[in-house]
């Protein structure tokens, strides 16, 4: 099997705020099209980590490279999904999804086909012309995810997007994101506190330590999809990761 090319390379990344060292010597790579999950104990600096990855803040030392170049929102196509749905309330579902593409000036035919593809995969056909405010929170989050994938980003960063939802809705949305990821084959870094979610979604899991955070362990997950949360292998991995970060 051909070795996939490396999409993201992080070298000796460190970040301090004054005297507070948040991240220390983070080194890892992400392959093109990989679904990577990052977990760590509460307050370990995951959000800072994310902000560094998309160059919203400057590292104290070290670098983040995408396709071999320094990560920058201007050069690279980066998509970010937050915990709160951030769909534009004044645009319809369709307009929301095509927003990123329009902003980067793609041609109309390409935009149309991308948008249609996303709407079909996410099952949003009947909501095409609805506004986000008329829809449920989970549906709104789907719009945001669809919008992000539609742009064919170099890197898609998701910061605990399902944090507040109930388990059933969570599993449903997790299946949705896996589905659209498989279709578009983008590189995804998904950050979460929920270990079960990480094991459910990831091809590989990075486990962070508490502040100053560095990577404790990388765990490859080779389980077939859709994953069974009651399967012994799943439980084994979940328990292992729990052991690594348990503070409660």
């Amino acid at each position, binding site marked *: 099997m051909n070795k996939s090319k490396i999409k993201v390379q992080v070298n000796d990344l460190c970040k301090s705020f004054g005297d507070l060292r948040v991240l220390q010597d983070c080194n890892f790579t992400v392959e093109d099209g990989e679904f990577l999950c990052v977990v760590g104990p509460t307050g370990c600096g995951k959000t800072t980590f994310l902000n560094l990855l998309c160059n919203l803040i400057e590292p104290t030392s070290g670098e983040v490279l995408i396709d071999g170049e320094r990560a920058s929102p201007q050069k690279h196509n980066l998509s970010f999904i937050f915990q709160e749905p951030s769909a534009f309330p004044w645009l319809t579902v369709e307009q929301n999804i095509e927003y990123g593409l329009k902003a980067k000036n793609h041609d109309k035919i390409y935009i149309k086909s991308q948008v249609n593809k996303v709407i079909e995969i996410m099952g949003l056909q009947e909501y095409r012309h609805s506004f986000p405010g008329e829809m449920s929170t989970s549906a709104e989050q789907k719009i945001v995810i669809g919008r992000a994938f539609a742009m064919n980003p170099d890197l898609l960063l998701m910061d605990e997007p399902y944090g507040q939802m109930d388990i059933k809705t969570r599993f*449903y949305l997790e299946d949705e994101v896996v589905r659209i990821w498989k279709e578009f084959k983008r590189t995804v870094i998904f950050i*979460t506190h929920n270990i079960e979610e990480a094991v459910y979604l990831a091809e590989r899991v990075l486990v962070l330590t508490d502040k100053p955070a560095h990577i404790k362990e990388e765990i490859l997950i080779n389980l077939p999809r859709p994953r069974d949360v009651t399967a012994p292998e799943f439980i084994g991995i979940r328990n292992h990761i729990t052991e690594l970060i348990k503070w409660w």
Partner: protein
Amino acid sequence: MEIRNKLELRNISKIFLTRKSYSVAIQQVDLEVRENEFLVLLGPGQCGKTVLLNIVAGLLEQTTGEICIDGAPYSGLNNQIGFIFQSIGIMPWLTVRDNVAIGPKFAGKNKKERYEIAQKNIDLVRLTGFEKHFPRQLSGGMKQRVGIARAYANNPEILLMDEPFGQLDAQTRYAMQDEILRIWNENKRTVIFVTNNIEEAVYLGDRIVLFSSRPMQVKGVYDLTSLERPRDYTDEDFLEIRQKISDNMDLVLE
């Protein structure tokens, strides 16, 4: 030993009248709550669990049906019932100590007395040292502990908890679930805990009442007393029950 019912709900329903029509939040609920049990009310989001809890607390009036405590019907606010809201329920303009002392304050206790009670409960939830802090200086989990201390300070016989850990991240939730069980074990009383998280329900409850989505009805009652404590989230039996309940629960995409 005879199992006494601390609380009984009979034929409870709740209909909200809107300007143009009406909406049925609760269709029909009959429920028995045993003394000193940890009862979990589980249901999908927006199904009406909070409405039911507010009715039991006396903050809302039911459309039909009656509620009995120790066999005697009652209505309205009742000082035997304590309430733990989601974290924004504590007063931002009061310190931790004043927040916890609020029940005794309204009951007319003097400063010395109520601060003593407050201190005891602040120690109970392990927030010693934070008495003079304001809520904005506290983390989510700490704010919730203030809410718990506040409810306990009034020494209620029945404690209602409305998705108290809903705003917390998954790990802090685990920590708080252990906390609430520890506190409950130290002073046993009747607890009714509302949540939409199946894993949390199976971890905490002696029994779980599963509700449907609106109009709300009881879908099933699960007795978990045979599941030994402390429970293990990845234990085979735990996962089996969790799957069973999950299959039965309505998927409501809210």
